[in-house]
């Protein structure tokens, strides 16, 4: 069986769902961030798959690289936030960081 676009998309869909699941269910902030990475990578797989099969060509590659750069920046910022949360709350449990509760 030839590996086509649809297989890539399924992989990416599984990856995205796992990432979302991780974001929603994990309590530890770092785990949430890791989930986020999964989501971004799922998107990257999509971009590349479309670049190869869908006719996006070079634009798909550039978008993927762009997303990787963005993810790096996002990781830096988010880790800084997590460090701040740790300084304030002495833990990084996302469930208990609910100061914005109405």
């Amino acid at each position, binding site marked *: 069986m030839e590996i086509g676009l649809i297989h890539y998309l399924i992989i990416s869909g599984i990856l995205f769902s796992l990432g*979302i699941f991780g*974001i*929603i*269910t994990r309590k530890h902030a770092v785990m*949430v961030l890791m989930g986020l990475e999964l989501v971004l990578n799922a998107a990257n797989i999509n971009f590349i798959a479309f670049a190869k099969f869908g006719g996006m060509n070079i634009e798909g590659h550039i978008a993927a690289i762009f997303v990787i750069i963005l993810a790096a920046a996002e990781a830096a910022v988010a880790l800084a936030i997590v460090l701040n949360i740790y300084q304030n709350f002495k833990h990084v449990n*996302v*469930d208990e*960081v*609910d*100061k*914005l*509760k*109405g």
Partner: protein
Amino acid sequence: MTQDLVLLLSIIILLFPFLGFIINIFLGKKLGKISGIIGTTIICIDFVLAALVAYTKLSTYADLQIVQTRFDWITLGSSTITVGFGIDNIAAIMLLVVTLISFLVHLFSTEYMSEDRCYYKFYAFLGLFTFSMLGIVMANNFLLMYIFWELVGISSYLLIGFWYEKNSAANAGKKAFITNRIGDLGFFTGIMILYFTYGSFMYEDVFAGIASGVMPFNSPLMLTFAGIFIFMGAMGKSAQFPLHVWLPDAMEGPTPVSALIHAATMVAAGVYLVAKVFVMFTADALTFIAVIGTITAFLSATIAITQTDFKKVLAYSTVSQLGFMIMSLGVGGYTNGFFHLMTHAWFKAALFLAAGSVIHAMHHAMHHMHDHHSDPQDINNMGGLRKTMPWTYRTFIFVTLALAGIPLTSGFLSKDGILAGTLAYANLTGGWHWIIPVMAFSAAGMTAFYMFRLMIVAFHGEPKTEIAKHTKENKFVVVFPLVVLSIMSLWVFYTPNPINANQGWINKVVAPPQTVVPAAYQWSFLLPEKEETNVIAEQTAVAVANDSISEEVIVEEHKTAEPSAHGVLNKLQEETHHFHYPAMFLSLLIAGMGILLAFVIYQFKYISADKLEARFKFLHTLSLRKWYFDEIYNAMVVGGTVLFAKLLGMFDNYVVDGIVNLSAYLTRVFSNLTGYFDNYVVDGIVNFTASFTGFWGSALKKMQTGRVQSYIVFVLLGVLILLYFII
């Protein structure tokens, strides 16, 4: 002297006393006695300057009717108010009269007022008065005249109420002021009528307007009324019937004030005003003036007979003489009316200063004897002053002769002229106008009687009280003014002929002015005599809108004679000359009878005064109570005002207050209603909005868990929902 110089000097004369007022009112307390010296010196300089100005006007500019200046004061849109000042012949004479008498009174007061604690204030007020009086004299327009008119009113008020600790003095001041206000209201109305019609306050503009035939409201009747209204001002100031009541009360002021203001100058302002605007009075207005003057002269002469207060006798005598002047102007005797103003100013000032001298001496005697209850002004407390106060007596007897109208005095000349004028007038007009000379002659007789009664009771005989015995002649500064003023009452200053003033300078410089009233509304005898060829003298009766003029004397055709500075000889003057000798003999006879009667009753006591009093009880009481004028005015005017005020008060209490209370009640009810609306409807809406928002807020706030993960779930859900809709 050029005209400009004359005017400049006049301005200086006018402002000098004001300077004295400023100095004395602001620095007087520190100056103390010096304030009197300052005031007197200023007026002395003023007198010298006034003499210079008067001489220049009467000699160099004798041909000029008036030396004057005019300038625009206020420009309001298209109307301009022009004012100015000027010196004509009568103003020049008045300048002399005012400044000289003012100077003598200032001098007299340095002694008379020396013990008063408000010494400086007295001099300040005298300065203010002199300033305003000179303003009246110099004004050549109604506006300035009116302004200064009110200024003399206020200075008169201040000086009458000078001893304001005394209730009577304060009341007298108020009475004078309010009574004058009634007259001034008329004066103002008259001025407004003229300004409305002729658009100017200047005498010359108004007179030119009348001469050109323009009538106020196109009606000659209104011209008559304008004249009468303006004359009302004179009635107030010159204390003419029925506004004469304030003058006798004004004697509450210090006696030098009475001499200056309420005998010689201010009360003559009314006469001066009538003389100034003489040319604009119609025949009817003149008749009114003559009648008022006659009533005043007669009425107050009858009152003066029984008064026992030294100054009250003189006060009523002043009112009576002012009546003579007004009457003379009313009958057309312009020259004699003004002449009497001047001569009367001298001898009446002298009489009052003599009264002041007597009262001052009585005061000192009382003080000496520690008597503080007797009345120093009551002539029944005097008697025998002839021996203790010889100089006062001598001057007094001389000026009394002048007032009684005895030859060799100035009073004789002027009064004789007036009486001859009334005879001529009555002869020319006839009918009921004969009452005027009859009353005038009897008033002249009474004048002689009451003056000699006063003199005999106060100066002759034995001292009636201990006080009179201890009186002493006053100092030089008191006697000197008396002597000067008595000398001024000699005939030689006015004419070389002691029994006839026709050749005197006064008849030349104070010639009657040419009337500006159209001939149809003026006495024919006041119009200038025409050339024989022009005399058509249509004596046809013209039905003018008035009945009181005897129709024969109204000439229909119009005059074209040019007005000249000297006036023109008219029929009245001619007739007055004819009546000169009859009037003289008659007046001498009547005055002689009056004097004789006074001597018979009071000196030799052939007839007992008490018996006469009992015999003519009614007349005596009437005269003593001043014809009940004060009581009548009290009941009618004061009582009426109070009643009216009470009625207004009731109206206020019930009607106005009722309306106010009702509207207050209605407002309260209405505000209650709006209050309910506010509380329940408006607040209800507001509260409902608030609780509605609050409910949803609390409902929705539960979604804000603050947990990032739950937000993501919501986002995902949202995305899924969107996807559902898109796909």
